[in-house]
């Protein structure tokens, strides 16, 4: 589904991603972990070109999206993204937050989009919040709405950038539950997170990043039971 070849990204002189090669197959749940500053978020943000790669190519469903001639808006419609700080639009109601993109992209009529928004809100347990504004919601509720907003575009792939890092501990569970359900339905997911429990339970593959490289990757049980690299062992000893 996504093919990354020789991906490099530098901010000025600082090389954040150093020749990353990676293939993500449909239905995979790839969990990216690693110390802060290792390039995990930058890697994720390169996948939908929120960061422009310095070098390398990214191919999504057979299309080289790093080519400047590609209409990136059409590509992004097929990739949902959930941010650490939710980034809901504070000037709109929850309903408007969810329906804005599908209606503007002419994927649905306003009525269809609103119906869909209602269905999705019901699924994440927030049926009565459609007319509320983001400021009236708790962090966990905001993040569930942010997931719904991305899902309303019916994406083929969802990117999660530390979706629970800005939440109060008691609200982490409700967001992870929504993500687990999404995983069960077969959504292809790339998740940057510090939630090792989630990685172990939901991930089909773990990537461990450090210093702009993918240092180690494995399926979760083997990864957590027998980490090969010293750096991985050190990291896991601190977070587990």
């Amino acid at each position, binding site marked *: 589904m996504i093919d990354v070849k020789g991906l490099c990204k530098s901010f000025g002189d600082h090389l954040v991603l150093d020749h990353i090669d990676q293939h993500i197959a449909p239905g995979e749940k790839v969990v990216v972990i690693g110390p802060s500053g290792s390039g995990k978020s930058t890697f994720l943000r390169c996948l939908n070109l929120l960061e422009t790669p310095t070098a390398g190519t990214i191919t999504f469903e057979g299309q080289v999206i790093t080519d400047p001639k590609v209409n990136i*808006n059409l590509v992004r419609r097929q990739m949902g993204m959930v941010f650490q700080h939710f*980034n809901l*639009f504070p000037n709109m109601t929850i309903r408007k937050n969810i329906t*804005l993109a599908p209606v503007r992209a002419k994927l649905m009529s306003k009525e269809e989009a609103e119906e869909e928004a209602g269905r999705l809100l019901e699924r994440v347990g927030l049926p009565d919040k459609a007319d509320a504004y983001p400021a009236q919601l708790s962090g966990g509720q905001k993040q569930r709405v942010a997931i719904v907003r991305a899902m309303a575009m019916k994406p083929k792939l969802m990117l999660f950038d530390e979706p629970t890092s800005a939440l109060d501990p008691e609200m982490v569970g409700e967001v992870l539950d929504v993500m687990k359900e999404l995983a069960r339905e077969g959504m292809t997911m790339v998740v940057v997170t510090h939630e090792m429990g989630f990685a172990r339970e939901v991930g089909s593959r773990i990537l461990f990043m450090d210093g702009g490289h993918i240092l180690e990757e494995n399926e979760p049980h083997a990864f957590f039971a027998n980490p090969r690299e010293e750096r991985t062992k050190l990291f896991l000893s601190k977070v587990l």
Partner: protein
Amino acid sequence: MMEAIYLELTAMAPKDLVWYQTFFVKFYRAFLVADRWKLYLRGLEQTLILTVLALVLGIVLGLLVGVIRTAHDQQRPGRRNPILGLLNALCKIYTTVIRGTPMVVQFLIMGMVIFASSRNKTMVGALALGINSGAYVAEIIRGGLMGVDVGQSEAGRSLGLNYMDVMRFIVIPQAFKNILPALGNEFIILFKDTSLISVIGGKELLYFAQAIITLTYDPMMPYLGSAFLYLVICIFLTWLQGKLERRLRQSDRR
């Protein structure tokens, strides 16, 4: 009754009058003789019309320049648009020249050089004032647009919305609330700066006040009178601004 007192006092020698009698005579002469107060109101009306014209021009220019400057600065590296680069350079020259020269000099150049043969100096004044205001409004708008959290436009772009939609639905509405105090300030300054149009002979409040001075040879009353009118309108505008801000803030708390 007032007229009778006025006639009686003006019949006396000025050196025989007590100070409050002098004051009354001056006041009567500046405002009441031949219904002169109507001239001040006509001037005030002109001033308000000028303010609105300059305001509209200033907002249109400011929005255009502010959005072009922001769009240019927020381009993705490696995808620079050459047309946008050219427009941005023009906008930069505009704001630099306007903000770097005194307003009176701009009025004089517009009135005496560029539109030297125009007979309607009032409209030339409105044009000059609007062009001037546009440069300041552009910087206010640019600051407001840059001040909206980048995460907001990233969220919009990640949903596949194009740049124009992100601006229109997400960034501009949020920026508007943030720049309202600065914008209100700019408009109050603009209202007061209409008085400078008198240097090129445009008709506004100060022009009529000066016309009365040439009749009465007394600058005190007309100038104090116009100052009072400016003050009253400014106090009203400030009150209006506060009310609008309070209303917009209320929607935050709901």
